[in-house]
């Protein structure tokens, strides 16, 4: 119907669909966004007179659990995509559902972590360590929320597209997956620098 080509099949020269190229460009900009925050982290840390060790003020078991959860959700979403590739819609729904569930659990744990910080009187204004901690994890959390919205859409109303344009739908899931892996990837760096070092 559409006059816009390469929505559901790859461009012969570039070898990618529009959406996939688009999502990679978007991720490129995200790299620069988090890069600026990591740069800030280094500067604040090297310039600080006191810098608490993450393990003194943060809850490492909770952080580890969250890391594991996020990694698991990354696997489930890639499995969801693989299921679609094999044209198994129920399996897709199962894995996508799991992904959403895991990401919600991540947020719940994050909520308890934040609550514990506030309870101990640690706020962003406490020192530069907590300032950057709250900003990076907060922004990361917003990315998680964004991902949940997209994934839930693809799981629910969005999946109607599977009936008419399965290729295009699979492509969408792949893009959502790429984004989700990226969010996971950011966490893989955030976890050691904030919690462990």
């Amino acid at each position, binding site marked *: 119907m559409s006059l816009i080509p390469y929505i559901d099949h790859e461009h012969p020269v570039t*070898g990618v669909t529009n959406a996939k190229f688009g999502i*990679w460009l978007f991720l490129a900009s995200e790299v620069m966004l988090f890069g600026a925050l990591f740069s*800030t982290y280094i500067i604040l840390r*090297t310039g600080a007179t006191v810098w608490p060790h993450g393990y003194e003020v943060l809850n490492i078991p909770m952080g580890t659990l969250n890391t594991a959860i996020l*990694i698991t959700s990354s696997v489930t979403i890639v*499995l969801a995509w693989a299921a679609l590739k094999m044209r198994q819609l129920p399996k897709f729904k199962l894995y996508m559902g799991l992904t959403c569930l895991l990401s919600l659990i991540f947020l719940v744990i994050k909520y308890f972590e934040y609550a514990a910080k506030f309870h101990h009187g640690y706020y962003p204004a406490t020192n530069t360590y907590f300032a950057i901690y709250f900003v990076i994890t907060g922004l990361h959390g917003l990315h998680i929320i964004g991902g949940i919205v997209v994934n839930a859409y693809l799981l629910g109303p969005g999946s109607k597209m599977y009936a008419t344009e399965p290729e295009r739908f699979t492509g969408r899931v792949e893009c959502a997956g790429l984004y989700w892996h*990226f969010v996971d990837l950011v966490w893989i*760096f955030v976890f050691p620098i904030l919690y462990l070092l």
Partner: protein
Amino acid sequence: MSSHDSPEEIKKAVKLYIGIFVALLFLTLVTVGVSYIHLSVGKAVALALFVASIKASLVALFFMHLKDERKIIYATIGLTGVLFVFLMSISMYL
């Protein structure tokens, strides 16, 4: 990617994903475990970033299919990588 479309290929890929998953969990435990030893700052940073980079590479190469992606995606990432280095260099100036 058309070359990976066949169900057998996908099945193989799924096995691989599970393997990567296990590796990622393992590496997570490694970093966390090491953090309890309280190494000197330099060593701790080097080790933590090293492990994190391996994990990130695994995610990028396999989950994000970067292992066999198109030139145009590599180009995008390459450019971003270089500019990312410029951006991180800010932290050396202050």
